[in-house]
């Protein structure tokens, strides 16, 4: 099996597992939709307020939904011994992690983005800002997932793992949130979102390259 074969192996494996455990992905999606729909109920139905807070609310909800999905990324594999088997196989572990991350994004990140246009309507977000909203999520959610994978790998097997992941991740998520919501904000107020989106894309590239090897090393330390 080549390096890419290992990546494809992990990707197919996790997609198949996700198909058997559809509830997990649906929980994340349900959380995202419900968290977003709480805000209009709380702040009232004034259109201009909703338009004002909409991008930020959707972004915060997407961020929290990603956090919700993180503990499961490695936890099951750790308890049933399949993580040990993957490490002991001698296959390149960063490739396994990369495959798992792509699968996790397809299962939890992509559905959020697909649902976003509906929520954007609920927040009466101007239609011309919707592409920017979607682009910022497409560029931002992989970054959230990659950073979270490192934290998840580091805290694997700890009793306070999920709580620690939240505490470790939230400060790192701040820039993604600022630029993500900022891009939509800029578009709504008639400015160009290009700078925000470029920064999000740069962040995603760095994380996409760095997260698999770093998380793989953290996993090796965690199983010891």
């Amino acid at each position, binding site marked *: *099996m080549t390096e890419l074969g290992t990546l494809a192996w992990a990707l197919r*494996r996790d997609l198949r597992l996700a198909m058997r455990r559809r509830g997990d992905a649906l929980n994340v999606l349900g959380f995202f939709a419900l968290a977003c729909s709480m805000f209009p109920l709380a702040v009232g139905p004034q259109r201009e307020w909703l338009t004002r807070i909409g991008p930020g609310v959707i972004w915060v909800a997407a961020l929290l939904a990603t956090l919700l999905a993180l503990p499961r990324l490695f936890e*099951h594999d750790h*308890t049933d011994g*399949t993580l*040990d088997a993957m490490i*002991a*196989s001698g296959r390149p572990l960063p490739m396994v992690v990369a495959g798992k991350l792509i699968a996790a994004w397809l299962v939890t990140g992509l559905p959020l983005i697909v649902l976003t246009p509906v929520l954007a309507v609920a927040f009466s977000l101007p239609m011309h800002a919707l592409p920017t909203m979607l682009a910022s999520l497409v560029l931002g959610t992989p970054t959230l997932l990659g950073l979270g994978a490192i934290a998840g790998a580091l805290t694997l097997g700890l009793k306070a793992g999920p709580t620690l992941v939240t505490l470790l991740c939230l400060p790192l998520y701040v820039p993604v949130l600022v630029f993500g919501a900022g891009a939509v904000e800029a578009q709504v107020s008639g400015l160009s979102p290009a700078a925000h989106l470029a920064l999000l894309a740069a962040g995603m590239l760095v994380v996409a390259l760095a997260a698999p090897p770093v998380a793989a090393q953290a996993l090796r330390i965690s199983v010891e």
Partner: protein
Amino acid sequence: MTPAAFGGLRAEGLALSRGERRLFTNLSFTLGAGGLLRLLGPNGSGKSSLLRGLLGLAPLAAGTLFSGTSASAPPLRPRALCAGALYQGHASGAKGELTALENLALSAALDGTAGPADESVLREALASVGLARQRDIETRRLSQGQRQRLSLARFALALRVPARPLWLMDEPSAALDAEGGVLLARMLAEHLARGGAAIVATHLPVAPDTGRIDELRLDDFAPRRGEAREAQAAGAAA
């Protein structure tokens, strides 16, 4: 295809700690093609930890591994053993939501012992360990012994190809019935006869009747009381 013989493994002065406690020190062994090393010792003497340590799943506190049995054998790079080894740990290593066949297909692809196109081979391997009828049942519905048989199916596949000549098995027979024990012994015998090698941690007699079998009692290498205390003091001081 005849599997390539195992190249040999020599360990010198291995030591391993778990937390503050030193499990064993100064442990050495030699394992050549066709050899089986049986790890014995009471619970907590470090049998599982030694297997994990050899693979780099747990850190060795001291010692060197050499690839070969001769005195001039070159030292092994860390984790280099993984590529030629097949490891079965305490946990089942199978996903409960997947069927026995799916789990075996995933393991076989990872081990490089059978491709996804070889479904008949996978079915055969499952039948050979007595799981023909449990093929399409979710693994979480299998009994402990059946799960252990599923792990054995991985080793049955490894008999076909030369990729993984060193078997590392942690209590492979703990949940097996008498028939399963016979099956395990037969598979080990075949593996050794083909020039493979195995390190098996077990308190049950699984020894096949062929091959060169050595026993390693880990409690013989446990630090004596004074040493243990010194090691602890050193650890505390550090």
